[in-house]
């Protein structure tokens, strides 16, 4: 645990020492602020269909997903790839730490940056309360959804970075996997097969996020995100272990 925290702290420090963290957070907030204002403007039009702005904010727009699949690889790409490239993996893995501690530490560090990027958006909610009544329940479950999907995505990103020596390759691989996961939403409309349709609906992240944004915490969605996280963390751990087989 001591080592996990030390590695997580180091990763987070590294983010903030490089321009990386600032660019990620600034770009994220700029995008989100823009999307939020567009949503508000659209909903304030006379005759607009009635909807909670936060419902659209949490995964209700394509922007949300575009940003998620771009931001995740940017956060995670260097986690493992850089250590391999610069050789620091040798100093790291000759310190008394286990592979699992390294994987978890790096994961926690990346999650901390992800959370740090989302934290300022709480301000939007606060701003909304000044002008209208905000239902707190869906907002909380919306953030829970953001956290769960983020956990899933960051785990994928960490895995792709642990298997490659090149940051760009890691980022592209992560991007491809995330894109595939998102595209399932489109497949659910196209597939009519009675067996596959419910399966695809179960893993459709778009509707999962919409569920959370509506205030519905569906245990199936939670289990899906958590098991996805666990799967990719386990794969990442295996990737670390393969070093010993060579």
């Amino acid at each position, binding site marked *: 645990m001591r080592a996990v*925290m030390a590695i997580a702290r180091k990763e987070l420090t*590294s983010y903030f*020492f490089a321009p990386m963290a600032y660019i990620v957070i600034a770009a994220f907030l700029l995008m989100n602020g823009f999307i939020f204002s567009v949503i508000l403007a659209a909903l304030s039009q006379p005759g607009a269909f009635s909807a909670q702005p936060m419902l659209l904010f949490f995964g209700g727009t394509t922007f949300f997903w575009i940003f998620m699949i771009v931001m995740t690889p940017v956060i995670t790409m260097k986690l493992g790839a850089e250590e391999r490239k610069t050789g620091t993996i040798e*100093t*790291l893995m*000759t310190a*008394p730490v286990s592979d699992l501690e390294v994987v978890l530490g790096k994961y926690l560090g990346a999650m901390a940056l992800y959370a740090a990027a989302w934290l300022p958006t709480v301000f939007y909610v606060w701003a909304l309360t000044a002008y209208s009544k905000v239902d707190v329940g869906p907002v909380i479950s919306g953030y829970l959804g953001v956290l769960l999907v983020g956990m899933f995505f960051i785990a994928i990103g960490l895995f792709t970075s642990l298997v490659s020596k090149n940051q760009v390759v890691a980022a592209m691989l992560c991007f491809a996997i995330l894109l595939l996961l998102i595209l399932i939403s489109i497949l659910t409309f196209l597939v009519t097969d009675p067996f596959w349709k419910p399966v695809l609906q179960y893993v459709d992240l778009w509707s999962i996020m919409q569920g959370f944004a509506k205030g519905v915490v569906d245990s199936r969605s939670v289990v899906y995100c958590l098991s996805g996280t666990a799967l990719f963390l386990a794969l990442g751990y295996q990737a670390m272990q393969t070093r010993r087989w*060579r």
Partner: protein
Amino acid sequence: MIEVKDLVKRYGDTAAVNHVSFQVHPGEIVGFLGPNGAGKSTTLRIMTGFLPPTAGEVFVGDHSAQEDTKAVRRLIGYLPENNPLYEDLRVQEYLAFRAALKGIPGKARKGRIQEVLEACEVTEVKDRIIGACSKGFRQRIGLADALLANPPVLILDEPTVGLDPVQIVHTRSLIKTLSADHTVILSTHILPEVEAICSRALILHHGALLYDGPVSELRQGLGGEAGGLLCTVSADAEAARRCLEGVEGVERVERLATAEGPPRFHILTAQGVDVREGLFRACAAAGLPLLELTVQQVSLEEAFLSIMTQENSSEVLS
């Protein structure tokens, strides 16, 4: 303290390390010699548990480097080749991170970091970003990291590469000081370094151990034939030669090329025969002033080369 048993490491068909066995006792300071690509770094990496061997075993203080990696890592302070560091951290932060990783308790950390910063003379850059440090500082930061947890064993892979001559002398004396209460293994391809610091040398070539013994013997016995004597006599070259050849025990006298001045000779004798006194008396008797009489040492480089070029390594090992 360290036992390496029949270590083999293969990459595909090529054997980087080929049946290497040796032991290192507590308090020893061992020089690991060999040209680039001899398998030094691979052996050290296996010893630290970073790489798995193809066959064979390594024990550090009763722990197997493969089975009980974490225990072995606790006993070892390791400075890898090329000394990889996190470029974007400050020196002090880096050491704080390493201290936490190595399990130094929070309260002791600050003091310990201070100590290694001073021991390695890097205090002046402690607030600098590592990426902005010179090669000399970086090397010493790596060394400071290796010392951090005060491990009983230090494994240093080419610790003086990239340092200027003053820093090299400093680093060597630091390592020498450390050897008082640490077991040190250092790899290098610089022979005088081994001579300056180490008590024992291991020579690795093409993955095989060619020599394992005291550094002093490396120079004497294994240089092949003895180096002979250098002698300058203030006299006519031919007269001097006749006089020198007449001494009992002298096998061959060769005149060395000198631009001017008195003739200089290289005198070869049978192994273990000392002709210095005879030479003096012969020259004195003949009335030829003896200007120089030097025992020619076999340089370590020559010894090294002769060991490496010997086809049959088993003769040397014994």
